Structure formats: C-alpha cells, structure tokens
C-alpha cells in the first residue's frame, strides 16, 4: 500500500487537459502569452470576453481559409444561379415571352446575383462554425471553476497537457510566477 502512495504524486494522478490561469486585464493576458511562448510552450490557448486582435497575433495564429471558402461559395452560387435559369428557360421549358430571347442574360442578372450572395453568406457562417468545430456542447475548460467569468470580464490562458514541454508541477509553478488571479487544473 505504501508503494502506491509513493508513486502517487506525478504519474498515478488522472491525466488533465491543461492548466488554466485567470487574468483581469487584456495586457496581463498578453504578457502571459508572450512569456509562455518564450518559455517554449506552443499548445496554448487564450479565452477572452471579446475579440482581441493582439491576442491572436501573440499566439502566432493565422488562418486564411475562410475567405477562400466564401469565395468558392460565392462562385458556386453564381454558377448555380445562372445554370438554374439557363436550364429552365432554354432547355427544359423554352417559352417565348414577348419575343425576348430564351437566354435573357440581362434579366437573369438579379437572380444570379442573389444566389451568389446567398451561397457566399451561407459558406461564411457554416465555414466559420465548421473551422471552429462548433457546435461543441462539451469542452474540458467548462469544468474549471471560474471559467464562466470568461464570458464576462476575465481573461484566461490555458497551457494544454499535449504540449511536449508540459510538466504538471513545473508548468503550474511557471504559470504562478505570472501572478494570475487564480490557477486551476482542468480535468478532461
């Protein structure tokens, strides 16, 4: 029995998701992110109550896929919108309306335009949600006792356990040196 007690401190504890530190100011959070990156941590995530451009920069996070998705969505809408009108008016149901050409390009512009907008907007919203992995009803950080404040006025830094440099006690000591308002271990 005593052997188990000896082995307990580092390995036998249940693995955790990461270590979460709470700050009350965006500048403190930015400082913490930069320190963590200097320390060599890479699997870090910040949680803020509103979008802060500098935080994404400090995390060295770039993602340019969304504009491309929206562009492709728009082009799809454009082609689909025109194709719908061309096929119905010229191929499937050609009917002479007041002598106008079957392929009335000018008259087909409004619907083509609206389809372009509709598809582009749908891809912007669905693309954003898909890239963000939402809807995601469960996430480990929701376990952290004070995390509900992230949607109010608190700023959180999470160093995740997947980071190669992550060491449960060492990382905790490092995070505590950043003088956060609170530190918590996040269970899975």
């Amino acid at each position, binding site marked *: 029995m005593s052997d188990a007690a000896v082995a307990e401190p580092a390995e036998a504890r249940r693995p955790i998701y990461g270590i979460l530190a709470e700050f009350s100011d965006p500048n403190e959070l930015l400082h913490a992110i930069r320190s963590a990156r200097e320390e060599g941590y890479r699997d870090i*995530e910040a*949680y*803020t109550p509103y979008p802060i451009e500098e935080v*994404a920069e400090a995390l060295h996070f770039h993602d340019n896929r969304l504009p491309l998705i929206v562009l492709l969505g728009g082009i799809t809408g454009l082609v689909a919108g025109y194709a719908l009108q061309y096929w119905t008016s010229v191929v499937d149901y050609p009917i002479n309306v007041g002598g106008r050409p079957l392929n009335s390009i000018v008259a087909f512009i409004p619907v083509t335009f*609206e389809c372009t907008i509709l598809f582009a907007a749908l891809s912007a919203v669905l693309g954003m949600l898909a*890239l963000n992995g939402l809807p995601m009803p469960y*996430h480990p950080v929701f376990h952290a006792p004070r995390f509900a404040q*992230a*949607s109010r006025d608190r700023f959180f830094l999470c160093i995740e356990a997947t980071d190669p440099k992550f060491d449960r006690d060492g990382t905790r000591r490092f995070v505590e040196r950043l003088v956060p308002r609170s530190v918590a271990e996040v269970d899975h």
Partner: protein
Amino acid sequence: MNEITESAERPPHDAPAIIGPGQTFRSVTDKISQVVLVRQTPLGWYFGLSIALALLLMFISAVGYLLALGTGIWGVNIPVGWGFAIINFVWWIGIGHAGTLISAILLLFRQQWRTSINRFAEAMTLFAVACAGLYPILHLGRPWLAYWLVPYPNTMGMWPNFRSPLVWDVFAVTTYATVSLMFWFVGLIPDLATLRDRSESRVGKMVYGIFAMGWRGSARHWHRYETAYLLLAGISTPLVVSVHTVVSFDFAVGIIPGWHATIFPPYFVAGAIYSGFAMVMTLAIPLRKFYGLEDFVTKKHLDNMARVMLATGLIVAYGYMMEAFMSWYSQNEYEQYMMLNRFRGPYAPLYWSLILFNIVIPQSLWFQRVRDSVPALFILSLVVNVGMWLERFVIVVTSLSRDFLPSSWGMYYPTVWDWATYVGSIGLFLTLLFLFIRFLPMISIFEMRTLVPEAEVREVPE
C-alpha cells in the same frame, strides 16, 4: 461620414460620447444581461406586449377572413390591383434596410457608434422583413399555392418565368431574410454564451446553452469569427442595395406612367434607409428610456441617426424633384398628366402631406437644438414613418388609378380589412420585438466591451 468619425472620437467633455463614463467590462455585461435575466419582468413589458398581442389577434382575424373569402374583402379592384398589400410590402421592407445598413455598412466604415444600436436594428430588420414577406403572399389570391413561385421540379412540367421582376423579388427577399437572420444569429453567439454562463435558471442555462453552441471565447475562434463577421458585412452591403433595387424593379419594369423611371432604384434605396432610420429612432428612444440605457444609446447616437436621416431625406427630396422634372422634360403626355394628377388630382392631399412630412418638416434637423431634443426627434421619426408610407401609397395608387385611357380610370378606397391587415402587421412586428427584448440582449454585449476604457491594449515591446 468622416465628420461623424472625428466627432465620435472626441473626448467626452467635448461632445456627448458613444458610451457613458465609468463603464467597465463587468458593468456593461451586467447592465445589458440584467434586462434579460431579471426575475421580475417589468409590468410595462406586459402592458406593451398585451397591446401588441391584441393587434396581432386583429391581424390573424383579418388574414383568416381573407383566406376564407379572398382578396375581394380588400379595396383592390381593376384598375387599382395593387393596394395596401404592395404599399405595406414596400414600406416594411424599406424599414428593414436601416438594420442592415447599421450592422454592415457602418461596420465597414468603422463607425463605432453603431455598436450599441446594431443588435436591435438587426432584429427590427428581421421582423420588418417577416411582415413584408407576408403581404405579397396574401396578395396572391391563392396564398396556399405560394410555393409555385419557387423553382422546383413539379408534375405541371413548368418553371417560373425568370424574366419577371416578381420572381426576382422572391429570390431577393428570401436571400435578404436568410442573410439577415444569419448575420443576427452570428452576432448573438458570444452573447448567448454570456447568458448561458450568467443565467440562474436551469431552463435558461439549457436554452441559451443550446443556441450558444458551446462558444467559449477561444482566441482562435474569435479570429475566425471576426473574419466571418467582416465578410458577412461585405456581402450584406451589396445585398441591401440590391433588395430595394429589385423591389423598385417591380414598378420600374412596368410601363405605367410614374413607374417606368430609371431613377427608381437609387431613390427607393435612399427612401428605405430614410424610413428605416426613422423606425430605429422610434424604437430606440422609448427603449433607452424605459430600460435606463442612456449610457449606451447616448445623445451622440441620436444625433448621428438624425444626420443620416437628414442626408437620406435630401436624396429622397432630389428623387421627388427629378420625378417632376422628368415628367415635364419627357414631353410625354401620360407622364405629364401623371404628375399633374399627383399635384391636383383626387389624391393630391396625400401627395402634399408626403412632401410636408418627408421634405419640409425634416429640414428642422439642420438645427442642433432639434437634434439635441429627444422628444422632437421622436416626433420627427414618427412623421417620417408616416411620410414614407404615404410616398408608397402615392406611387402605387395614383399611377394605377389614372393611366392611359380615361375610360379605364377608377378610384381606390381601402376597406376596414385593408386597415386591419396593416395595423395588425404592426402588431406582429411589435409582438416579435417585445419577445426579443425580453429574451435576448438588445445591445451587443461583447461589442460594448470593446468600447470601455479597460479594453485598451498597451503596446509592449517584444
């Protein structure tokens, strides 16, 4: 636009600011979410909602009677086949335009003052489009066959005629409704997360939680979120212009005198924004007072909205002038008669009241004292709402009632069912609005957080 930016950035002692002094992340969050999460719903809300529900009941009865008997219960008859239904359709959809303008175009122009009014302006857009969309359907004669307007493979072997502006309308209005809904919902996601985290009731946590979709404010999520929001704004900007353009095509593509004019699209879009801002003002003034939100919707906002109204009102005035000028300049007998008929015909009192309401009275907005007075702005906004409704009445009815042949002239008088449907649709609009302000944050909380002084990021040398 530049002038507005500069004055918005002046320090508070110089001019009214876009957010009251002393606000913090916490105070902004608590104040706005309090309206929704409060245990005791204010009695005034029940009072307002019951009036709205009474009007909605009238709408339901009027529509029920219409479905039973047909459009004969309305005053429409040949030659005036487009009565209140089309007037109200254009009026409602025009009102919606200010919401998209505020949320999209002002975002692209980096007008920070939009932040505290965009949420309920967008809600107003949605509800106005919902009211607008009902009218053409009710006007169809057989509303239960409205799905025939949508292109789908059917056993009749037919397709809609895509050369018709009425089919363009179907695409424009449904796209507009869908995109507005998505824009509004995307803006709501972070605030729904706030409500989920702050709600004390189990049901509240569940419902807000489901719609927040697990939003947790991750920096990576915010980054993509901001990109998506900007892209949506960029997409919505041409959309909002196109929608009222397509609505104006319903008229401009026809050959009726007074409708067949190339000025219609820009003139309709300006009129839409004019009436929409008037409606935002009509709603914002009582709401800020009732819920004590004067720190968020400040006098600066009202002043800016008044300026937008003045500017768009002048564009509309130019439109009226050009209509009159072109009918003379065209040397077309029917166009000239149409204009004289507006000036002196049976509907002349309506024409002159619209000039009074839309052009003459709003000129008082040139004066700072009028723009500073909240009651004056409220009255002016109502005046413009009525004026813009009269404008649509004059456009639709005067042209149809007297076109080419005197033998086919006829007068249009609305019946009690026309009025019941119109006033009832205001009830539908108000019901949706009252439910919205009770259950969702009427001001974007996360965007307000970016405006408080705490949010300032100091540059740290790397």
